[in-house]
């Protein structure tokens, strides 16, 4: 079974390059990636549940990580999506502990190698931490 990732731009953030490149490269890594484009937290969680996703990937460079990012986790847990939620983009270091505390499993900055994201996903999905 391929690992299934639902990838989304968070809210109004317009920068789609990163989300798209990561999506394509995770496909190269053998995962199935559903790229949603821009969505708000409710729709992202809904799509992840419908798709039976193992992972939600959130991308933001627009400064909405603490507000909308955390909201995704809250809604996901309310609706019973208990799998992995990860985030990438331009995120200040100081905010990363807050995001992790809220339930974002990992935050990947601009210079992350995609194979590292893939490795993280594999280890967490397989080990059942997700």
């Amino acid at each position: 079974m391929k690992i299934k990732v639902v990838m989304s731009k968070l809210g109004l953030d317009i920068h789609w390059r990163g989300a798209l490149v990561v999506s394509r490269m995770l496909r190269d890594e053998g995962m199935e990636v559903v790229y949603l484009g821009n969505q708000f937290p409710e729709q992202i969680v809904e799509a992840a549940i419908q798709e039976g996703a193992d992972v939600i990937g959130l991308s933001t460079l627009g400064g909405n990580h603490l507000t909308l990012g955390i909201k995704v986790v809250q809604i996901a847990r309310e609706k019973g999506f208990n799998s992995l939620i990860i985030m990438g983009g331009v995120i200040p270091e100081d905010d990363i502990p807050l995001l992790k505390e809220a339930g974002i499993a990992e935050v990947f900055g601009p210079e992350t190698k995609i194979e590292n994201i893939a490795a993280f996903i594999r280890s967490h999905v397989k080990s059942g931490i997700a």
Partner: protein
Amino acid sequence: MANKQSQSNQETLGKEQKLLNQEAIKTIEKEKERWKEETVKGKVGEKEYYSDSGIPIKLLYTPDDIKDLDYMEDIGFSGEAPYVRGVYPNMYRGRLFTVRQIAGFGTPEDTNQRFKFLLKNGATGTSVVLDLPTIRGYDSDDPEAEGHVGAAGVSIDSIEDVEALYEGIPIDEISSNIVTHLPSTTVVILAMFVAMAEKKGIPLEKLSGTNQNDFLMETTVGSSLEVLPPKASFRLQCDAIEFASQNLPRWNPVSYNGYNLREAGTTAVQEVACAIANAIATSEELIRRGNKIDDFAKRLSFFWNLYNDFFEEIAKCRASRLVWHDVMKNRFNAKHPKSHLMRFHVQTAGLTLTKVEPLNNIARAAIQGLAAVLGGAQSLHVDSFDEAYSAPTEESALISIRTQQIIQTETNVVNTVDPLAGSYFVENLTQEMAKRIRDYISEIESRGGLVSVVESGWLHREIADFAYQMQRDIESGELKIVGLNYFPSEQSKTKVEVFRYPESAESTQKEKLRKLREKRDNDKVEKALRVLRQKCHEDVNLMPYIKEAVLAYATLGEIEELFREEFGLWQFPLV
């Protein structure tokens, strides 16, 4: 005598005049072969060398690499056709490039304070970036705006906000750049700006500045939840340009945004070609509406992104002027010299900023900024070193201004015009860039023109493919980035002071909106919006009707909601 002189000039001008003596070229070509065999002996490097756009780069450039050039035809003098050497005769001796640093965060009042700080420290114009809800057409109290108000730019909901933004700023003396991105945002914000000036009693001919207004920003470069169809967005783009050409003689109603295309993922060639293709499409549309090319072409301006490939970027700047002159003169038959000259703003490349060892970004931005000046830019924004972390702090923004001032005053590069002209390499590269830009414009046109390649998703695929390949090249190490994959940084963490957006902006803006909706004459708003709604379906310019609406205190979100209802939404291609 003078007459005779001029006549003889014309006679010689009519003939092809090569820059260099063709006999001498033959000798040089022969000698070059000898040199390769006897002196270089095949030691030309271990690999093939290419520019960032994929142009093969030779070991050594010599006169035979520019043997076909005709000086007057292909290069010329500054301030004269074909403007390769610069758009003004005396370039930076006449006026230094404008130090234009973007600012925008929080409420209009917050950004107004940053404007005043930058102006006090030597900025010579204002440049404002808007927050995402404003750019995407939502009021601060719209549920869609949650979490974004005042975050990546300043929040503008109504004409009152535009008034607060420019409070105490002499908009009749210094130029105002407004990074409106989308045409739908532009038509509203420009209407607010013009209405504000009228209320203040400032004659419209005194307003100088630029707004961005590029339908590629709406439909291609940035994705969003609700996107207007390319044709509708393009129509609004043309409305703003047409309105300004008739009412605002010193305003640039468009800045064709190669910059953000490049950030999304293109080569330097594609960046310039798409922007010029957009200007071609605009010109065709405005002519269809009954305008004359010389009525509007002189106010079309451009926006380039300069990466680290120093000479290619300089050649790009020169080549873009060459291609533009050709398009305007020969394709559109523009007569006014100002229609033939391309003016552009440069911002250094955000994408080249690294998060590791962020102070290195000061060096990168300085090199890119220098290239912009050697390329003859009219205004410049130098990125701040901390922009891979957040919007710049006051401290890092000041370093960006200082970088520009160092280029302006300490390097002496501004003292002579286009100093790299005549370099065998730079002239050869300029010609090659121009050729490739023309070829890519032809490719776009063979696919039905720019609006069509957006509608079909072709341009999105071009961008996505490039971005994907670039990431692969970084990960494989083929594309080297200092501190990242070349001499990777050993510093595990660099402490960077992060700029914090004022969190109170959302509640402040919401409260202002609540009061506005209470005190305004809502019947007047309704009436203005009703007229605008109807006009959306007629072949007319919407600007005057939008201006009426903003004067009645209709909000940006209300007007843009109307656009979404009347023009419908378009499915952004998920490539």
